[in-house]
């Protein structure tokens, strides 16, 4: 067990420089931007007095390295800046919007992993059969369709014309719902955004699972399992899939960043009140502090989730621990 703890410690130490690099990139962008950095920090709505106050607070009259230390210590203490346009701290804006985004991302990930693995396994059973061609076809369309356009098309077809699903938002407004009704209402709103966000990853996981299954199923131990007289189901799932899942796990771990990017686009289409719409609105209003804050926050989330995946790997596969 101690080797696992050592692994956790080592990986955590490795993740810290990454977080500093993110903060540094942000600092660099703010200071390399055309015009005064306060403009980026405060947005266009800043009054003259406020700019002066902020210049003092961020120490903009001080040398660059001092400014950098002030900035880093602010960010580490959770101070991501203040949005004048919304009269709110960036960090509290983010925390407010986080649950909706996490719900969307988590649902989409579950859909794409479950359906993707199922399609991939089905396709790999008989390569170039009708089923395989159907699954690979779906996968090809999935990886080529722009997320936001898929969302718009689903919205037009299923929400506006068919009226099966609500067009936007997280819950039905102006109706007080409680308990189970509330949950069902949220789920009803969740269907289209989740499918939209899941499509690309579902397709990618299908392709990955199919390729990986075909490789594993060609190996000697599968032939051994078959000649031992195991039935096909056991060979496919217990021997084949279990070994074929490693690339899929890697992909799931590394796709958190992609999922956030996809969530921004998806939320903007469906008016899903998460960090994506926050970013979309902030971009429209040129509310720079929010943009920069969201970037730092999402980056840290991605770094932390990669860290967790890395550690899980080490726990699951002892061979990786020493690396």
């Amino acid at each position, binding site marked *: 067990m101690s080797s696992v703890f050592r692994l956790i410690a080592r990986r955590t130490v490795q993740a810290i420089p*990454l977080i500093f*690099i*993110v903060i540094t*990139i942000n600092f660099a*962008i*703010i200071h390399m*931007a*055309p015009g005064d950095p306060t403009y*980026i920090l405060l947005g266009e709505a800043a009054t003259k007095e406020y700019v002066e106050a902020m210049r003092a607070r961020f120490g903009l009259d001080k040398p660059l390295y001092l400014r950098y230390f002030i900035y880093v210590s602010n960010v580490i203490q959770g101070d991501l800046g203040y949005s004048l346009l919304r009269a709110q701290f960036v960090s509290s804006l983010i925390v407010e919007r986080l649950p909706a985004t996490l719900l969307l991302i988590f649902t989409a990930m579950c859909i794409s992993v479950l359906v993707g693995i199922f399609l991939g396994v089905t396709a790999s059973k008989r*390569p170039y059969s009708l089923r395989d061609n159907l699954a690979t076809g779906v996968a*090809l*369309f999935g*990886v*080529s*369709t*722009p*997320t*936001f*356009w898929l969302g*718009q*098309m689903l*919205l*037009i077809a299923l929400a*506006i014309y068919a009226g099966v699903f609500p*067009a936007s938002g997280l819950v039905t407004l102006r109706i007080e719902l409680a308990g189970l009704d509330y949950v069902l209402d949220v789920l009803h709103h969740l269907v289209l955004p989740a499918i939209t966000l899941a499509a690309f990853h579902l397709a990618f996981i299908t392709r990955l699972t*199919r*390729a990986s299954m*075909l*490789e594993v199923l*060609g190996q000697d131990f599968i032939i051994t399992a078959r000649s031992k007289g195991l039935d096909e189901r056991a060979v496919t799932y217990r021997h084949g899939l279990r070994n074929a899942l490693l690339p899929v796990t890697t992909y799931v771990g*590394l796709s958190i*960043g*992609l999922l*956030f*990017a996809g969530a*921004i*686009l998806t939320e*903007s*289409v469906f008016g899903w009140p998460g960090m994506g719409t926050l*970013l*979309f609105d902030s*971009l*429209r209003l*040129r509310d*720079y502090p929010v*943009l*920069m804050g*969201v*970037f730092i926050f*999402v*980056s840290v989330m*991605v*770094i932390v989730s*990669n860290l967790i995946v890395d550690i899980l790997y080490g726990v699951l596969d002892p061979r990786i621990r020493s690396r």
Partner: protein
Amino acid sequence: MAQEKPATTERREGKRNSVVSRVGRFWRQYRKNRAAMVGLFLLVGVCVVALAAPIITWHPPLKSAVGGAFVPPTAGYPFGTDDLGRDIYSNVIFGARTSLMVGLLAAGMSALIGIFVGATSGYYGGKIDDLLMRTCEVFLVLPTFLLALIIVAVFGTSMNNIILAIAIVSWPRTARLLRAEFLSIKEREFVEAARVLGSKPLDIMFSEILPNAIFPVIVNASLEVATAILTEAGLSFLGAGDPSVPSWGIMLNNAQNYLRVAWWMAAFPGAVLFLTCLSLNLVGDGLNDYFNPRLKER
């Protein structure tokens, strides 16, 4: 210099390995791949449309009030008109120019940076390799779409900035691929021979190793073009597009406000964007089948 080279394996094959015969061999094999051929036809189609844009359209793009607002698809306006009475068909056709330009320039620039970094890293190894690969890792971990979005939002939504931002966040994939190729090829005899004969490191890197290591980069490049096109569309959709040129992403951003009244504003630009990416993915898969035959059975 090239004449003095000893008869290595690559040399001795002489004529059989000339560029023309290599292309011929490639084409005979590629032709048999039906999906890849469909992709190639689609891609050529998009390119022809982009080149012939002024000939096959009859309304100037970006110009308001060439028709009424929200005219549904009709003979005069095959894809309808938008809220300002702009012809969507013209904008979609001219938008192909923008998308292809962004795709090619961003992927090209990203490939150049990636090749330079990957070659240096793989050839020299050691501390340089460590530093460069760590940098790559940072980019591979970070949410790069978001980074590109912020760069464009802060530095201005011009075409140059968009292309630069996409190139800046996408080169590490190429660098890693090429580095891996370099690591295995630099141990081969013909490289050793060139070194013994006193070739300079830059010569060895770019005229000895690179020609033998470039194929994975080429396969990857076709996918990078698709990614760049999608990224530009995504940035534009979120409002970080260059409004001075016709762009599918900006059209989709505008369409978002009128989904209830004008489905055609979203349907056509998106469909063409989809077809372009589909064609690039099909061609990429086809190239992959040829250059990595081991994966073909998969």
